[in-house]
C-alpha cells in the first residue's frame, strides 16, 4: 500500500486548505441560492392580512384649534369628563400623582412668561384647556429610548404602553407638562369604567392620543364632539378643512413657540 508521492501540477491535485475554502464558499452560495429559490417559487400571500378600516379618518397633519371665545368652564369640564371617561383615566385625587390627559389652566400657567398686566381682563379669567400639543418636532419622541412614543405620519404623537419601560425621560422632555405617570395601579381609581378601552398598568407613561382609536373608526375625538364647536379638529394640510377655515378668519397663538417644538394645538384668543 505505501504512500504515493504527489508529483505536482496535475489538475486533480488540490491541497486541504484550498478544498476547505472551496467547500465553504459553495455551501454559502448554495444556501443563499436555495433560500432565494424557495422564496421565489413558494406560493405567495396575494391578499393582505390586515388593513386600516375603510371609514378611518386620515390626514397629513392633524391639528386642533381651541376657540377661547366659544369655550366656557362648563363646556371645558364636559370635554375633560368625556375624555377621561372614554379612556379610563383614573381619578387619583392626590395632585402629586394625578393622571390627566386634558385639563384647565389659567392663562398665566398655560402661557407662562407672557406679560400679564395689560392683556384683556377676559383672558386673565378665561379657562384655557390644555392637553398634549402633538408637536410637529416633539422633544419627547426625540428622547424616548425605546420608541414607545413616536410621531405617526399623520402627526399624532402616539404612546405604546406595551413597550414603555417607565423611564420618564419623555416627562422630563415635555415642555408643556402634558404627560402623566402611573405611580401605582390605576384601576381602583377609575370612577366610571368604560369597557371598550383598556386601562393602563402601574409603571407606564400616558397622555392624550388625539383619540386615535376613534379616528380609526371614523369618529371625531371625544373632547371635540363634547365641545359644542369650541374645539375644532382637522387636517392642516387640507385647505378645505374646518381648522384651516378657522385660521383664515382668526388669529391663533401657540404655547411656548420659541422652543421650536411646533405644537399643533392652537388657541384663538
Amino acid at each position, binding site marked *: 500500500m505505501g504512500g504515493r508521492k504527489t508529483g505536482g501540477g496535475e489538475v486533480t491535485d488540490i491541497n486541504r486548505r484550498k478544498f476547505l475554502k472551496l467547500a465553504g464558499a459553495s455551501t454559502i452560495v448554495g444556501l443563499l441560492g436555495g433560500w432565494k429559490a424557495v422564496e421565489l417559487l413558494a406560493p405567495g400571500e396575494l391578499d393582505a392580512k390586515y388593513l386600516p378600516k375603510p371609514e378611518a379618518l386620515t390626514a397629513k397633519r392633524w391639528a386642533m384649534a381651541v376657540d377661547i371665545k366659544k369655550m366656557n368652564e362648563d363646556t371645558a369640564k364636559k370635554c375633560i369628563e368625556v375624555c377621561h371617561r372614554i379612556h379610563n383615566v383614573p381619578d387619583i385625587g392626590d*395632585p*402629586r*400623582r*394625578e*393622571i390627566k390627559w386634558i385639563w384647565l*389652566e389659567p392663562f*398665566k*400657567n*398655560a402661557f*407662562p*412668561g407672557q406679560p400679564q398686566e395689560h392683556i384683556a381682563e377676559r383672558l386673565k379669567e378665561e379657562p384655557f384647556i*390644555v392637553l398634549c400639543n402633538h408637536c410637529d418636532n416633539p*422633544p419627547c419622541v*426625540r*428622547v*424616548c*429610548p*425605546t*420608541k*414607545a412614543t413616536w410621531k405617526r405620519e399623520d402627526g399624532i404623537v402616539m404612546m405604546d404602553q406595551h*413597550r*414603555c*419601560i*417607565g*423611564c*420618564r*425621560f419623555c*416627562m*422630563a*422632555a*415635555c*415642555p*408643556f*407638562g402634558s404627560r*402623566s*405617570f*402611573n*405611580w*401605582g*395601579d390605576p384601576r381602583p381609581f377609575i370612577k366610571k369604567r368604560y369597557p371598550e378601552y383598556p386601562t393602563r*398598568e*402601574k*409603571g*407606564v*407613561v400616558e397622555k392624550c392620543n388625539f383619540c386615535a382609536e376613534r379616528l380609526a373608526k371614523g369618529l371625531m375625538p371625544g373632547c371635540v364632539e363634547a365641545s359644542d364647536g369650541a374645539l375644532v379638529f382637522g387636517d392642516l394640510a387640507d385647505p378645505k378643512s374646518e381648522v384651516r377655515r378657522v385660521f383664515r378668519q382668526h388669529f391663533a397663538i401657540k404655547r*411656548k413657540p420659541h*422652543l*421650536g*417644538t411646533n405644537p399643533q394645538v392652537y388657541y384663538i384668543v
Partner: protein
Amino acid sequence: MFEKALVGDRRYWGLVIALLAMIGVGFVLYLWQLKVGLKITGMSRDVSWGFYIAQFTYLVGIAASAVMVVLPCYLHDYKAFGRITILGEFLAVAAVSMCGLFIFIDLGKPVRMFNILLHPTPNSVMFWDMIVLNMYLLINMVIGWTVLEAERNAAPPPKWVKPLIYLSIPWAPTIHIVTAFLYSGIPGRGFWLTAIMAPRFLSSAFASGPALLILLALVIRRFTRFDPGREQIQTLAKIVTYCIIINVLFILFEVFTVFYSQIPEHMHHFEYLFFGIEGHGKLVPWMWFSLIGMVVASVLLVIPRIRRDETTLAIGCALVIVTTWIDKGLGLITGGFVPNPLDRITEYWPTVPEALITLGVWAVGFLILSILYKIAVSVKEEIMT
C-alpha cells in the same frame, strides 16, 4: 485572585456583614416598590425624577474620575500613579455598578429594560448612555483584573491591555458627558438647558472622585499594610483643588448668565433653590451649605499647608464630597423640575423607603468596592513580602 476576598480579619467580615444587612433592607423594600409601584417614593407628576436618578448622576461622575489617575500615568509617564491605578479602576467598577442599579430601580417597568436594546433608538441620549456605561464597566473590570493579575505574577500585562487602557481614557469623560446630555438637550427645562452642564458635570466629577479616592487611600493605609503613597495622595489633592475651584467658577458663571440676562424661565429655578418661592424652600439651606462649603473647601485646599497635612486634607475632601453630592444629588434634579413648565411649584423630598432603598444600593456598591479593594490590597501586600 478572587480567593483573596474570602479571607479576612474580623473587621473585614464585620464590614461585609453590615453592608449585606443594609442591602437586605433595601432589597425587601424594593420588592415592595415592585409590588406597589413608584408611589412609595416622593416623586410626583411634576418632579418625575428624584433621588434615584440623582444618585445615578453623582455616581457617573465618581466613575469617570478613574481617568484622573490613569491619564497622567499612561499618557504622561507619571509612574507614581501606577501604584494606584487599580484603586481608581476598581472604584469605577463599583460606581458604574451602582449607576446601573439606580437606573434599574427607577424604571417603572424594569422587566422591559431590554427594550432599549431590542428597539435601538440612536436619537435618544438614554440609549447611548446605557451603551457607554455598560462598556465602561466591562473595560474597567477587564483592565483592572488583568493588570492586577499580571502584577501579582511579576509579569508584564498582556499586550492587548494597553490599547484598552488608552480607550478608557477618552471613554471616562464620555460617560459623564453623555449623562450631562440627558439634561442639557431638553428644551423645556431652563435650569438644565445650558452648554455648561457637561463641563460642570466634569469639574464636579473630577473634584469628588479623586477626593473619594484620597479618603479611601487613607483608609487603606490605616487598616492594611499597603500604603498608596504620600506623593500619590498629594497629586490627587492638587487635582481635587483645581477641579473644585473650577466647579465653583462654573456655578458662578451660570448665575451670572441667568441673572444678568433676567430671563424669568431661567431665573425661577435658581430662585427656588437658593431663596425659595412663595414659601416653598425645602432646599434653600442645603444649597447654601453646598455653595459656601465648596468655596470654603476651595480656599482650604488651595493653601499648601492645609493640603499637605493629611488630616486637614481629609476634612477638605470630605467637604468636597458632601457639597458636590448636594449640588448634583439634590439640587440638580429638583431644581430642574421646580417650578414646573406651567409655573407651578411641587416640592420634592425623598421618602423613608426611598432613602433606605437608595442606601441599599450604595451598600451594594460599597460591598463591590470592599471586595475588589480587598483583592487588590491583598495582592499588593503579597508582592511586598
